[in-house]
């Protein structure tokens, strides 16, 4: 699109499953007659001759020869439709038309405003009650969210977050946590074809104030605050970013169960190590929500047993290495590692030192190739060294800063999980002086 504005006639080529999304993106971008062309899905894994057949075949969206569309799209003069002003205002009303409860429930579902579980309808009284959970004005602007990098960003204020918090069944005293999560601008409903989820972990005094569960069943459906805060973050994300509708604003091939709700609390008081938020520059008395983009893989284990090192190496090297690991450990496990002489940092360093695989396997990964290789080719370390390594050489696949550990669980078992999770709610390097640190809950009380 930017090239068209630069004066270069351009044909964007996508696979056919992106047909509706490409049209919607073109309309929202003010170029509804963008001359997109499509080839069948998939392109990944196809041989050169198979791709040549795509080029010489039929565009499955526009139903004409692919190259005919390309050549015509580049040379056909602009017509009246192309030159028509494509500007328009869009708005969402503050209130919906009054209707019966049953009809409104149907409307919310048909409009894809729910997660298809029952919701609490956001009446004025309920939203007002929810807003008592924060000192912020309802019309205070909170931020922008978008389903993917190249999509338009929608804005939202405190009231919009409160509306979705009501729908999720949250209580007013949870609202500052929900606001802090949403204010990071990181969507809990990423549209990525890889089916990302955003996992929210809460630290600090607010965990106890609102009764979050960091004990037995800490990651399960056993606590009102955990369940509804995560759900509210998810509903706010889908509704305040412009949707999460399959084929239009959601393209995750498999989907992700963490998208329903994924909010957890660290068992700071029972951990032998410093709380996660303190490791990342906050004070112990701060309340913080940290957002991890992940949810691809889960490995689990118990111990540490005698062969824990081999187990950890197997887990780490079996991970999708584009998505870095987050260890969630029961306090029993953390304390056993302390007995073995590990600090949190030294255990992370051990993982980084020992998570090694042959370079040829590291690079034979779709997302490493797509997203990491360009940086490696540009000389950015440590990716450049990995790229230049002998294909048979063992290379480290995770830097220490990629690997995180959070302690939680009910001590009924020495259990741990290794989840796909990259910390993304970090302060931006170019953040304006005095801006709110991402994830700080206290500013939303």
């Amino acid at each position, binding site marked *: 699109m930017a090239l068209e504005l630069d004066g270069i006639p351009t044909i964007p080529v996508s696979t056919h499953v992106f047909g509706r999304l490409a049209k919607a993106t073109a309309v929202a971008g003010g170029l509804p007659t963008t001359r997109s062309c499509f080839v069948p899905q998939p392109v990944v894994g196809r041989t050169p001759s198979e791709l040549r057949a795509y080029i010489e075949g039929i565009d499955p969206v526009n139903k004409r020869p692919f190259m005919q569309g390309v050549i015509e799209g580049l040379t056909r003069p602009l017509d009246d439709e192309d030159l028509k002003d494509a500007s328009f205002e869009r708005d969402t009303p503050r209130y919906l038309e009054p209707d019966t409860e049953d009809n409104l429930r149907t409307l919310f579902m048909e409009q894809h405003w729910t997660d298809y579980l029952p919701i609490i309808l956001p009446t004025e009284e309920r939203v007002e009650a929810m807003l008592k959970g924060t000192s912020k004005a309802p019309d205070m602007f909170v931020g922008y969210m978008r389903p993917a990098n190249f999509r338009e960003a929608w*804005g939202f204020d405190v009231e919009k977050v409160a509306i979705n918090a009501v729908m999720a069944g949250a209580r007013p005293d949870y609202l500052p946590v929900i606001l802090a999560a949403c204010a990071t601008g990181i969507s809990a409903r990423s549209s990525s074809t890889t089916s990302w989820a955003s996992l929210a972990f809460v630290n600090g005094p607010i965990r106890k104030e609102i009764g979050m569960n960091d004990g037995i069943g800490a990651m399960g459906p056993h606590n009102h605050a955990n369940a509804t805060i995560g759900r509210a973050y998810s509903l706010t994300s889908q509704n305040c970013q412009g949707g999460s509708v399959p084929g239009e604003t959601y393209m995750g091939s498999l989907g992700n169960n963490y998208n329903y709700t994924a909010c957890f609390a660290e068992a700071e008081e029972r951990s032998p190590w410093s709380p996660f938020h303190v490791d990342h520059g906050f004070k112990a008395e701060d309340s913080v929500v940290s957002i991890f983009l992940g949810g691809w893989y889960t490995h689990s284990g118990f111990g540490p047993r005698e062969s824990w090192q081999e187990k950890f190496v197997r887990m780490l090297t079996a991970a999708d290495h584009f998505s870095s690991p987050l260890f969630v450990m029961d306090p029993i496990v953390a304390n056993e590692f302390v007995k073995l002489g590990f600090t949190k940092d030294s255990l992370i360093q051990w993982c980084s030192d020992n998570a090694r695989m042959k370079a040829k396997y590291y690079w034979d990964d779709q997302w490493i190739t797509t997203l990491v290789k360009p940086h490696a080719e540009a000389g950015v370390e440590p990716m450049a060294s990995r790229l230049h390594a002998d294909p048979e050489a063992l290379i480290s696949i995770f830097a220490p800063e990629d690997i995180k550990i959070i302690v939680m669980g009910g001590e009924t078992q020495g259990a741990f999980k290794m989840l796909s999770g990259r910390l993304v709610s970090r302060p931006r390097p170019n953040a304006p002086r005095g801006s709110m640190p991402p994830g700080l809950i206290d500013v939303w009380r």
Partner: protein
Amino acid sequence: MAQKIRVLDPRGYPPKVVGKRLANRPETLEGKVVYLIDCLFDNSDIFMEQLRDWFAEHIPGAITKMIKPRESWVDDPEMRARVVADGDVAIIGVGL
């Protein structure tokens, strides 16, 4: 008859759509520079190589040039400047 109630709209605020204009098209690709932009998705480079071969066979008068952005999903103004400097048209792909 069931009572009607009033509820709030849960959606955020969409930005205004500002209409833009497509670039003027050349009459022909003969003698024109066609930039083939590999958007870095897996196998896009092979697709673009096949596209380059197709042009060589079917429109040999078109001059194809392959180029890549710095990274996927991120605008690369330097790459665009190179395309604008000596290109006439572009094909970018393959979006997943």
